């Protein structure tokens, strides 16, 4: 005990003296995972985000002259390591961490209170705590673009379209095959509500982490004989599910995945079994978007790209990382408009930027991201902003976009979010903000 602490404290002395360099720099922590069962997602997203920062630094000299800096930290998708990375990175750079992408629903949960106390926005794009969309209760949490519940209503809408109308859903059977974690369970209540609304039956079947063993689950699915299977998987669970589906002969074009089940890494290992599989997405695949071409021109042409395997350029996860980079930097840009152009922004200022983020079609064009992402307008009431989803189908070689942006049904989602957020506020004794007085 003695020696361990002595070593620890000796190192501590060296640490706490680290003075932040006074420079025009905006520090963004990149906490992700490069090892473990979820590494394909973590490494792809981190690379996309960093490449976008590199693009801005090389082409525009940062954001109005403020260079973006970053530091990578390995979380192993584990909550304690995620908290450690957060604590390590939060005071770096001249203004501390701009915002945090926890990159795991579990870590997001662990950071909500810490971020709120430290005044650092917790941004969970396409994952995280759904009811944090109510910005009155969660001022520092931003589940941007689309949360799981919105996505789920869009999915049911899509199934309705395929069946030929929402009234045709009556009597249909849907299986919700989910990763047995906080992330996987997030959509159970909304599915139950929708099942009552439209008259379909839903069966929830859990797959334990990491999900490489699913025989029992698919036997159960065979007994249920569902019309559709909703796949709420993550990492290695996805190709395993597709292979198991092929084995029992369940049609793959009746399996609909969430966006964490819809990347190249999820289908290629399943081979032929994945053909026809449909997945949701909030960013478009492909390398022919203007912004990706710019990255190739300004970053990869100079040999400074983050990816070692360049064929991953334009894959789903990589593009998602670019999208996260766009949202991060746009929030800083917005904050600079109010608090001073060309200055590094603090977490508190970036929070304002995120809350007033408005990426319209015109701005999308300037960013070179038309068709790459949906327009986004965040407000104090609504920390989600977008809410629409595209559906894509794997043809054996690449993802083909099937639909345009399908809007979610906020008339179902919003009351549930507000009720859930109100319960949280009551449990924790939080007073709701009054949005009309926010500037």
């Amino acid at each position, binding site marked *: 005990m003695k020696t361990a602490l002595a070593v620890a404290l000796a190192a501590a002395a060296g640490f706490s003296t680290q003075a932040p360099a006074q420079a025009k720099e905006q520090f963004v922590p990149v906490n992700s995972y490069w090892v473990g069962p979820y590494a394909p997602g973590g490494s792809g997203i981190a690379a996309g985000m960093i490449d976008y920062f590199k693009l801005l630094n090389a082409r525009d000299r940062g954001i109005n002259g403020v260079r973006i800096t970053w530091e990578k930290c390995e979380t192993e998708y584990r909550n304690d390591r995620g908290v450690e990375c957060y604590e390590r990175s939060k005071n770096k750079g001249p203004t501390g961490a701009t915002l945090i992408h926890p990159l795991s629903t579990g870590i997001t949960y662990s950071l909500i209170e810490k971020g709120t106390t430290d005044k650092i926005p917790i941004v969970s794009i396409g994952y995280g705590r759904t009811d944090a969309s109510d910005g009155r209760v969660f001022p520092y949490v931003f589940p941007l673009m689309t949360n799981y519940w919105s996505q789920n209503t869009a999915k049911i809408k899509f199934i309705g379209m395929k069946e030929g109308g929402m009234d045709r859903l009556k009597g249909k059977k849907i299986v919700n095959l989910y990763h047995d974690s906080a*992330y996987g369970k997030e959509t159970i209540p909304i599915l139950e509500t929708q099942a009552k609304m439209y008259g379909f039956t839903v069966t929830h079947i859990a797959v334990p982490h990491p999900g490489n063993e699913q025989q029992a689950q698919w036997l159960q699915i065979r007994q249920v004989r569902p019309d559709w299977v909703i796949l709420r998987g993550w990492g290695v669970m996805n190709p395993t599910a597709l292979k198991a589906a092929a084995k029992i002969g369940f049609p793959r074009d009746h399996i609909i995945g969430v966006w964490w089940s819809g990347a190249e890494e999820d289908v290629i290992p399943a081979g032929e079994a994945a053909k026809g599989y449909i997945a949701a997405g909030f960013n478009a695949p492909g390398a022919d978007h203007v912004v990706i071409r710019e990255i190739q021109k300004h970053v990869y042409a100079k040999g400074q790209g983050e990816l070692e395997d360049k064929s991953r350029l334009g894959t789903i996860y990589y593009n998602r990382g670019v999208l996260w980079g766009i949202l991060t930097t746009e929030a800083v840009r917005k904050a600079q408009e109010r608090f001073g152009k060309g200055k590094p922004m603090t977490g508190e200022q970036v929070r304002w930027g995120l809350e007033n983020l408005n990426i319209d079609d015109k701005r999308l064009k300037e960013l070179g991201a038309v068709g790459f992402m949906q327009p986004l307008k965040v407000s104090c009431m609504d920390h989600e902003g977008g809410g629409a989803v595209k559906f894509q189908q794997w043809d054996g070689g690449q993802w083909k976009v099937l639909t345009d942006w399908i809007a979610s049904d906020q008339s179902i989602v919003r009351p549930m979010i507000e009720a859930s957020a109100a319960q949280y506020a009551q*449990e924790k004794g939080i007073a709701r903000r009054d949005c009309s007085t926010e500037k």
Partner: protein
Amino acid sequence: MLYREAGQFKSTYAEDQQIFPIRQDRIALAVFLAFALLVVPAIGNQYWLGALLTPFLIFSLAALGLNILTGYAGQLSLGTAAFMAVGAFMAYNFVLRVPGIPILLAFVLAGICAAAVGIVFGLPSLRIKGFYLAVATLACQFFVLWALQRFGWFSNHSTSGVITAQQIVILGYAFDTPARKYLLTLGVVAVMALAAKNLMRSETGRAFMAVRDMDVAASVIGIPMMRTKLLAFAISSFYCGVAGALHAFCYLGTVEPEAYSLDLSFRILFMIIIGGVGSILGAFLGAAFITLFPIFLNLASSWVNEFFGVEISHAVVSNLESIIFGGLIIFFLIVEPQGLARLWQITKEKLRLWPFPH
């Protein structure tokens, strides 16, 4: 020369029976505790207190719990994380459902719940031993997580099954900063570690060790097998339960049942194997090695980057971290199979002779 007990005569039974019979040990421990209580919170920053020292102390307590069961009583268990989960979720429920309950009482009650679960799953130990018992405790690991996930009551019907620990207030004093949480954790861990140290010298502790060394002989000399084994399970689970409650309340804040997976049980088992089976100090050394060392490796890679100006691909670094860590575990086990605590013991023996080893 400094560490020698020559000349320390014991003239009363009380003196002879104190926890640390050697004066140098007592002084060192007092200085060390004073340092940890007074100096560390003053010089440590949030990162050190909140992200490194607090989890280190909490995992030390869990490892200590397992060490009582596995190291002292000789019963192999793979259910440590499950007992921690029981502690975390029950502490949350006690605070939620019993208005005005003192938080420390909630921790104790949570520990008692974990002890009850431990006794139930300790029952097979009366019939089976060794690896077979490990498999039986594996059932505990899966059953507890299953129950926490399936019955909404445990998480107060949270949609995603996570719990958010309430604020810690003791006698009107809020433990809300990392430094205060660290102090609370340190207090609990110090008291429980001393209690464990004392317990192992008592009749109960000696009975545990007798059962571990040879249970037939132990029962022949009149040690009640059932009571001793179940008591070992109960005490061990109590420690793990309190560690779990601290883990939720003082460290993560919001936890999901998956945080207490089998993976964590194995990590705690590795802690006591590396630290030293059957040693209080070993639990701390092992916890330090397993929780802090990977972070140190991670930081070291960034120092290498800065120092030598070579950028190593982060994916390589992350994988190297696992490789070096695994390699070191094997190295330590070959060089010192009895763990880091044994190394410390050898150092102490050498110190007694220093500077004149014959």
